[in-house]
């Protein structure tokens, strides 16, 4: 069974890491629900690994090797210290000879130490679990609320109603809510003109520092001229002085093509 036709190219691009973060996020939403596309992606990823495997191997310097091994010792001594503790040979023999004498006391001491260690670890873990559970619950609530909002915005039967001054002529319009800190953007558009074949509306972020416009997602209106775009991982937190919409060839362009059909400043 083949993957969904409309995701065919994107799966290959995703496998080699060639999608933008927004495009990846959109595909991941689909992957979360589609086992066929996940399987296709797995096999394409295995093929993509060949690109890296074909790189000429280069052995790092002996100095680097020695440093890494030393680093390993440090990590090991922290991580598995009790297992690594070894007495000098003479000491070990002495300990074996006298072991019967000290055995009960050592056993009691060992049990007490182990008990304290387990109790402390348990107490820490319990605290961490409680903390994690609380954070998880908060995250779930936030996620549920975000999910409800996105479902409401993008539902096929969602009614977009624009209120204008009585008697005013209805014009294409869009509203953008953007948070550079949250890397998130919501666009709601209405009364958009239908697009010619193989064309798409593209949103552009106009950076506050005056650098060139950045692509911020593409969208197509439904048969009522409405569209919604929700991006949760947009760019590098660039501050915006405004947004603009152009019509581009599918699947979108890296630079805007004039004319601008909608624009607005913050």
């Amino acid at each position: 069974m083949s993957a969904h036709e409309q995701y065919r190219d994107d799966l290959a691009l995703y496998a080699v890491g060639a999608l933008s973060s927004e495009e990846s996020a959109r595909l991941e939403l689909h992957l979360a629900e589609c086992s066929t596309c996940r399987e296709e992606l797995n096999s394409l990823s295995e093929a993509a690994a060949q690109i890296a495997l074909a790189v000429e191997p280069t052995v790092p310097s002996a100095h680097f090797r020695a440093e890494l091994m030393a680093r390993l010792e440090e990590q090991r001594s922290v991580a598995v210290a009790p297992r690594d503790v070894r007495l000098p040979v003479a000491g070990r023999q002495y300990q074996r000879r006298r072991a019967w004498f000290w055995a009960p006391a050592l056993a009691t001491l060992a049990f007490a130490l182990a008990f304290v260690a387990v109790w402390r670890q348990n107490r820490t873990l319990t605290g961490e679990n409680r903390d994690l559970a609380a954070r998880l619950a908060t995250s779930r609530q936030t996620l549920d609320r975000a999910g409800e909002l996105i479902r409401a915005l993008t539902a096929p039967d969602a009614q977009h109603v624009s209120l204008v001054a009585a008697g005013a002529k209805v014009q294409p319009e869009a509203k953008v809510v953007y948070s550079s800190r949250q890397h998130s953007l919501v666009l709601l558009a209405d009364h958009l003109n239908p697009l010619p074949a193989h064309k798409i509306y593209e949103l552009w972020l106009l950076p506050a520092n005056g650098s060139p416009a950045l692509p911020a997602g593409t969208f197509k209106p439904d048969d009522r001229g409405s569209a919604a775009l929700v991006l949760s991982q947009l760019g590098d937190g660039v501050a915006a002085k405004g947004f603009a919409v152009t019509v581009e060839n599918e699947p979108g362009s890296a630079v805007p093509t004039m004319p601008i059909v909608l624009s607005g400043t913050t």
Partner: protein
Amino acid sequence: MTQQLSNDASIVARLLDGDKEGFVRLYDEYAGLIYGVALRVLRNAAAAEDVVQEVFLQLWRNPTSFDPKRGRLAPWLAVITRHRAVDSLRKLKFEVDSSETPLSDPQASHASVHCSAESDRAKRLMAQLPAEQRQVLELAFLDGLTHVEIAARVSQPLGTVKSRIRLGLLSLRKGLSA
């Protein structure tokens, strides 16, 4: 392949036991592959060494991050190294100095037996691809470019770049199953 699976599984088992000898063997077998990939992506020896260290220490601290049932160790190491190197490339955004790292280093020695067997097959598969497919695959996977950036770099329409990437991957996949 079954032999390989058991080799990979035994490496993980040795690391789980905290077996330093096992780690040293792992390093000697795969360091060439990992450093080679990191160096190709980053083109900077110090940054590539940082990636190599991260990859090996990750395996040492958490050997079960590799699951032998889900694939072989060499491709897995190559891919996680590539991901870390590309992340590092994007974060650091340092000046690429292609003169610092000769891509065909005359001092480079091949990694040992089964790693180089995998590497040889991958080289053969890549060499069989049309040059334009190989180019876009490398620009994406090893230079960390998006399809839009690749289109600009090779002065080709996006659609052409997408189809070259897809066709290239399909050929590699076919070669793997042959």
